[in-house]
């Protein structure tokens, strides 16, 4: 596929804005609405921050992102880390579930991703890492 994009950057929170901006640049090619753009950026922000915070425990490590259009108006985004992985994926995806013991995480990251994207798949193995794949159909409903 000619429009595929692969990106590699360091999984630190400092790079969260860059990860979002690249996602926006990619998705902009399909002429999304401003709202759709925000939704995609938010989902990417959640997945990327999870890789940095949970996957790499804030110590850094490589995050790979892959972008593709599976059709003219459907974008697929994959965000991968080689961090600690997730023991129980179904539980991790529950709203409000967080392994954070402090007061800072709300456990809503996966819920936000699920609400803003059409489909989300999580592959993970403890000790090996995590891959989050998200798909969103951009609404061409308005016929433009």
């Amino acid at each position, binding site marked *: 596929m000619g429009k595929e994009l692969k990106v590699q950057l360091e999984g630190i929170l400092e790079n969260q804005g860059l990860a979002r901006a690249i996602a926006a640049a990619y998705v902009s090619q399909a002429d999304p609405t401003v709202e759709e753009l925000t939704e995609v950026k938010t989902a990417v*922000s959640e997945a990327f921050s999870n890789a940095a915070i949970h996957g790499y425990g804030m110590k850094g490590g490589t995050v790979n992102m892959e972008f593709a259009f599976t059709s003219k108006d459907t974008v697929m985004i994959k965000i991968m880390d080689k961090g600690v992985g997730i023991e129980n994926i179904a539980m991790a995806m529950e*709203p409000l579930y967080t392994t954070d013991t402090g007061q800072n995480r*709300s456990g809503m990251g996966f819920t*936000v991703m699920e609400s803003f994207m059409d489909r989300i798949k999580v592959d993970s193995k403890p000790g090996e890492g995590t891959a989050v794949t998200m798909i969103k159909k951009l609404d061409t409903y308005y016929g433009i």
Partner: protein
Amino acid sequence: MEIIFNVMGNTLIAELLGELDHHAADSVRQRIDSALDNYRAQNLVFDFNKVTFMDSSGIGMILGRYRKMGEKDNNMAIVGCSKPIRNILNMAGVFSIIDYYNTAEEAVEVFDRKEVS
């Protein structure tokens, strides 16, 4: 993220500007907490009018302050959210425990009335 603090009576108004993400959240929390201490404010209003981006870190930030303010006499409000931000806060049920108003003035008025009654 920049924060401008404003005090109206017992109320601290925190006007946020820029991107509120997991990267920014740490320092935002700290600055708001120390402002709460410094002003000894009883009530807190988050003004989101100039927030250009927010992810779930915003939920944690708001709920964290809610827990910290805790006691019954304290009031909290959120004002000026864009639609996507309201969506995210809604997902976590934030508005079932914290009221939303259009402007900070409106929120302060409501707090004042509560105190009188």
